[in-house]
């Protein structure tokens, strides 16, 4: 399968060209977040506090994972707190939500509205660990492994699971 190479931050044009089933590589800085931290990030974004926290969501990727000494790996993106974050975070500039599992039609429509995509990443922790060259906690460190981290990654592979109103699970 041909690989589409992407580097963060993503442009509107790069995202608009992606379609369901495309396999992409992701390089550059990405954020992490899952159940516990994503609602807090949305609240901070709504209150305009992200800049003071050193977080820039424009053109960004949010990887639905914990970050522990064991490494990283996707959790199910259709958990309530995670899936409900896709619309507001896309509104605040996130271009790619990286996780696993089928998401609902309304969420897919919301991604389309903001020219954002959902990508599925296999739970290949050892491989991802070998492709992660920096990691830093950027917000809500009290959440431990569920804090928001900033990772520098090299060629994570993922498949586009939802884009332009379509889903790979249809």
């Amino acid at each position, binding site marked *: 399968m041909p690989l589409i190479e992407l580097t963060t931050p993503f442009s509107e044009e790069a995202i608009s060209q992606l379609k369901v089933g495309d396999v992409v590589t992701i390089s550059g800085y990405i954020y992490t977040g899952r159940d516990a931290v994503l609602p807090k990030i949305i609240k901070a974004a709504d209150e305009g506090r992200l800049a003071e926290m050193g977080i820039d969501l424009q053109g960004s990727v949010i990887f639905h994972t914990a970050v522990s000494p064991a490494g990283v*790996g996707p959790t199910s993106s259709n958990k309530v707190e995670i899936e409900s974050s896709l619309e507001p975070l896309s509104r605040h500039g996130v271009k790619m939500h990286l996780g696993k599992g089928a998401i609902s039609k309304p969420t897919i429509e919301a991604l389309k509205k903001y020219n954002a995509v959902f990508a*599925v990443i296999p739970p290949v922790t050892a491989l991802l660990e070998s492709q992660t060259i920096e990691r830093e906690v950027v917000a809500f460190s009290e959440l431990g*492994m569920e804090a928001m981290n900033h990772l520098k990654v090299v060629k994570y592979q993922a498949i586009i699971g939802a884009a332009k109103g379509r889903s790979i699970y249809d």
Partner: protein
Amino acid sequence: MISIQEKVADCLVRAGSTFREDQKDAYRKAIAIESSEKSCWVMRQILDNALVAEERRSPLCDDTGIPHLFLELGKDRSVTGELLEQIKEGVALGLRQLPGRPMAIMGDDYARIDQSGGLNEDSGALAPSPILIKPINEDVLRLTVLMLGGGPAIRGITQRVFHKHSVDVVIDEIVNRAKEGVSKLGCSPCVLAVGVGRSQFEATSLMMESMVYGDFSKQTDFEKKITEKVNEANIGPLGLGGKHSVLATFAKIGPQRASGVRIVALRPCCCFEPRRACVEL
């Protein structure tokens, strides 16, 4: 001389970081015959991950799992309280070496249920499950460590089947339960671990045993039939479609009750499981 603790620790690290050869071959064969490009891509990633994990002795998955222990005991061998303590210490050492995800829940009964007591930051604080002991006809004391992840635990089910004096009825019920579990698991292709016994405890013990002894290259007709029927559902790796929702079924059928009911334990193991390794102590 290597201590019991070091042997157990090494065994746990191998369980959490290594695919066995029959497991690698199962993936290679599946990739060779799978027609869906998406499925092939997923399975190649899983196999590449296994090779990197083995080389680095690092976790296959960030859910490193709960250690489950299975001890085989020759008739001239003995188990002492001291040995069990050394095994427990070896598990803690192995979890720190892997490293395991720090996920021991702290606090009293209520705090452990609602998780209000927080997590212990020490990977080694994670307690192993109760140990299963099986007498065998070998002059050996052999420990198998299994690392069981949370996703399959969520999707697993132990429940009765009214067999109506037909094996096919039992197989069909296993298949129906498996299709639902596999489709919701996400981390497929799966291995289905099955135990059939007289009680919930016995069926679950047999299911554990199936994971200890299961071999991808040796499948009974019972196991093949279940695998083939579940694969007809076209769920595929990561639910993306394809012929390989399940790579194999590992089943253990024990003694049965003189009645119309069979208790079936089913665990849809994730794409890395059964994560297991064994060591002679």
